């Protein structure tokens, strides 16, 4: 605004203006401009002068006035931050693609990227592999001696730690997870042959749906 009409106003008035300014900055939900502070002050008191005095008065206090973009605001003194900040752990979930990739590496290791893509039936982005690497869940395990010598990937001890596993053998067997065809008469001598079920095909064994490349 204009020049302060009185560079040394009434001390009591100035003290009251200081109180108003402090309360106003405190109550404002964003940094408050000097012009807005001016509106709340008694006439004849310059907001700039009041705010400058307030900057000096609150310096060293646990909460100090600071001038930021757009105006004035109160901020916790920097030296108190360690005592006040409470660190909250918000663990992230792996995205679905990363989780699937990790699972395939766990079950098929050592495995190349093209093999992972083959198993998932979808392309695998470099970013996904890098995210798993960054978390320390997978590590390269040499190269496969085929044309192009692709890297082989395997899981790390950190992977076991994360998922609470003693070892890879703690993982459930693949057949328990994916219903792939089981052999009917795997061990004929062990089969109890008077059990009539032997002759009945279980539903799961519908021929058309079987894995063309039977794994076992």
């Amino acid at each position: 605004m204009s020049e302060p009409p009185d560079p040394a106003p009434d001390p009591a008035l100035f003290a009251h203006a200081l109180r108003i300014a402090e309360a106003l900055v405190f109550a404002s939900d964003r940094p408050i401009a000097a012009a807005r502070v001016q509106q709340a002050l008694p006439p004849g008191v310059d907001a700039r002068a009041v705010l400058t005095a307030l900057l000096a008065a609150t310096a060293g206090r646990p909460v100090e006035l600071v001038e930021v973009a757009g105006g004035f605001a109160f901020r916790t003194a920097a030296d108190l931050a360690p005592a006040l900040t409470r660190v909250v752990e918000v663990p992230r979930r792996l995205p679905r693609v990363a989780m699937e990739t990790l699972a395939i590496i766990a079950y098929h290791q050592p495995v190349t990227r093209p093999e992972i893509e083959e198993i998932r039936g979808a392309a695998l982005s470099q970013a996904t592999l890098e995210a798993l690497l960054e978390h320390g869940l997978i590590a390269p395990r040499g190269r496969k001696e085929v044309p192009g010598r692709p890297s082989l990937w395997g899981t790390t001890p950190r992977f076991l730690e994360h998922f609470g596993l003693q070892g890879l053998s703690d993982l459930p067997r693949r057949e328990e997870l994916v219903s792939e065809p089981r052999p009917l008469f795997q061990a004929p001598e062990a089969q109890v042959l008077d059990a009539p079920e032997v002759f009945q095909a279980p539903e799961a064994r519908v021929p058309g749906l079987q894995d063309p490349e039977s794994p076992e």
Partner: protein
Amino acid sequence: MTQPVLHLRLEGFEGPLDLLLDLARAQKVDLEKISIVALVDQFLAVLDQARRVRLELAADWLVMAAWLAWLKSRLLVPQDPEEDVDAEALATALTERLAELDRMRLAAAFLGGRQLLGREIFGRGAAENLRVEDRSGLHAELPALLQAYAAARRRALARRPYVPKHRKLWTVQDALARLGGMMGALPGWAVLHRFLPEGLIDPVEQRAALASTLIAALETARGGTIELRQERAFGPILVRRALLAPERMPEERAPEGRTAEGRTAEERVADVRAA
């Protein structure tokens, strides 16, 4: 001139109890000591004036008026010992309701008289967030890992085009040869399954081999070299070397078991397929 004012007044009350309380307060005595009879008269008078302005009055006003008129008559007439309603008790209950409404009015006034946060008193406008989120951790659960694997496999398998599998079927000729070769070493009854070729995994191939072996067994049994037996439907089929006349080939002789029913080998195969 007063009529429109009265009209507006009644509108201003939150129901009959509200008006009653206002009238009771006008008696300028403790609410416990108000005269119910006087109160009833005043209420009816106000309602009467209101009705002169407009006939329609809300039902709850009229119900209250009727009830009060009845209550007044009970209070004035000496108590009938036969009467099961105690007018005094009803009057006390009404007084208590008025007193409670009055208390709640005062409580509302107490609250309204407070300096309110956001009106007179202000809190910190821009709260500082002292929480720091550490997102470096990993939320890892084994079930999620396993589900991911199963989901990826299922999806990949479902997407793959169906390719009919090349099958190696065990022919009746193969079965005859295998049966003949193994018969010699057979000491007694043996289960037919023992004559299936080893290493068959595919269920279709297994069933084909079972059918071929059964036909071969029936054929051989017809030749009299072996005997077949089945204790019950779908029970195990047993095989042994024939004890009598090994080289004979009787036309009509049927071995024991289900072949005695006179069904052809092809029908039996059909049975096995259907199983």
